[in-house]
C-alpha cells in the first residue's frame, strides 16, 4: 500500500493524539505541532503495522513530518 496524506493522517488519528488531525500541517514536524514523544512513538508503530515496514531508530530523522513520512514509506513499499 502506498502512503498518502489521507492514510497517514488516519494513522495519526488512530494514535489518539491531542488536537484535530485535519488541521495539521504536512510540512511541519509532528513534535512542533504539539504531538508529544510518546504519541510520536505510537504513530511510528502504527505506521509500521499499517504499511508493513520497519522504521529503525537511526531513520527517525527522516520521518518527522507528514510529507517526509509519505516519502519515506513510498520509497520502501
Amino acid at each position, binding site marked *: 500500500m502506498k502512503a498518502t496524506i489521507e492514510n497517514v493522517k488516519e494513522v495519526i488519528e488512530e494514535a489518539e493524539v491531542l488536537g484535530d488531525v485535519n488541521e495539521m500541517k504536512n510540512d511541519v514536524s509532528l513534535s512542533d505541532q504539539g504531538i508529544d514523544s*510518546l504519541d510520536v512513538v505510537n504513530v511510528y508503530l502504527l505506521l509500521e503495522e499499517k504499511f508493513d515496514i520497519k522504521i529503525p531508530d537511526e531513520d527517525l530523522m527522516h520521518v518527522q513530518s507528514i510529507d517526509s513520512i509519505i516519502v519515506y514509506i513510498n520509497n520502501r513499499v
Partner: protein
Amino acid sequence: MLGIKDIASYLPEKRISNYDKKDKFELDDDFIENKIGVKYHTVKEDDEKASDLCIKAFNNLTKKMDINIEDIDCCIVVTQNPDFNIPHTSAIVHGKLELSNNCACFDISLGCSGYIYGLSNIISFMQSNNLKNGLLFTADPYSEIIDHNDKNTDLIFGDGSTVTYISEDALYTVKDFKFGTNGSAYKEILCDEKLYMNGRAVFNFTATTIPKHIKLHMEQSNLEDKDVDKYILHQGSKYIVDTIRKRLKVDSSKVPFDMYEYGNTVSSAVPMVLEKELYKAHNKILLCAYGIGLSWGSAIIEKQNSKDIK
C-alpha cells in the same frame, strides 16, 4: 491447594514530585498525569536495602493476619538490586525475621515480570517438597541505579516492596501460567552502573507482544473477556497500560491503574494492585507483567473462598 492467602506491601514515606521536574525535562501536567501516570515516586532512605523493604512489607502483613514464624518453610525474594552480590537477599531476610532453620530460601533475579515467575516458582517448589507456608517477597529499589538526568527513567520508577503469603488455605489459586522471553532484545533495558531504557523499543514490545500473549493465554485457557473480572497489568506507565488495554479492547473499568502516587515499583507493581483487589467480589483475575529481559509472564488466578468476599 497452595495459593495466595494474603498480600501486604510497603511504600517509603519519602516521595519526589514530578511536577518539580517540569522545567528540567520540559514537561506539562498532561504528560505527567495522562501519559506517564506518575505524579510522585517513592524513594527509600539511603541506608535501606532490599531486605529492609521486605521486612517492612512483612511487618504490614502481620497487621493483616496471624503468622507463626516457626511455620514458615519457604522464603523467596525477587530482586535485581540485592543487598549484596553475595549472599542471596532471602538469606538476609531469613535472618532478620528469625525464620526456622528448616526454611528453604532463594532469590529470583527478574525485573518487572518477576512476580509471575515468583508465584509459579514458589507454588511449584512448595508442592514438590511438601512445604506448607511460604513467603514470596518482591523488592527492587531502583533509586540505587537511576540516572537523574535521564527523562526515560528518572520520572517513572519508585521504591517499594510486597510479600505474598502462600498456603493451602488460599484465597486465590492459580489456574495456569504462561511465560515468554525475547533475549535478543536484552540491551533495551540494561544496567551496567546506571539504568538505561530504550523507551521506543520497550513501548513497541509491550504494545505488540503483550496483547497477543494475553489473548493466546485466554484462548488456551478457554476464557473470554466476560470470564475475567480484572486484568492486572504491570504498571509500567499509564501510556503502556492504556495501549495494551485498547489493543485488547477491554473496558477501562476492568484494568486498574494505580501508580500515580508511587511510580513503577518493578516486580512489586502487580502484587501492589492485586493486594487492593484481593478482597473485592472477583472470581477470575488475569495478572500480566513484562519488561527487563525482555521477559513476560501471565497468570490466571481463581477465587477459592467466597466467604471472604467483602
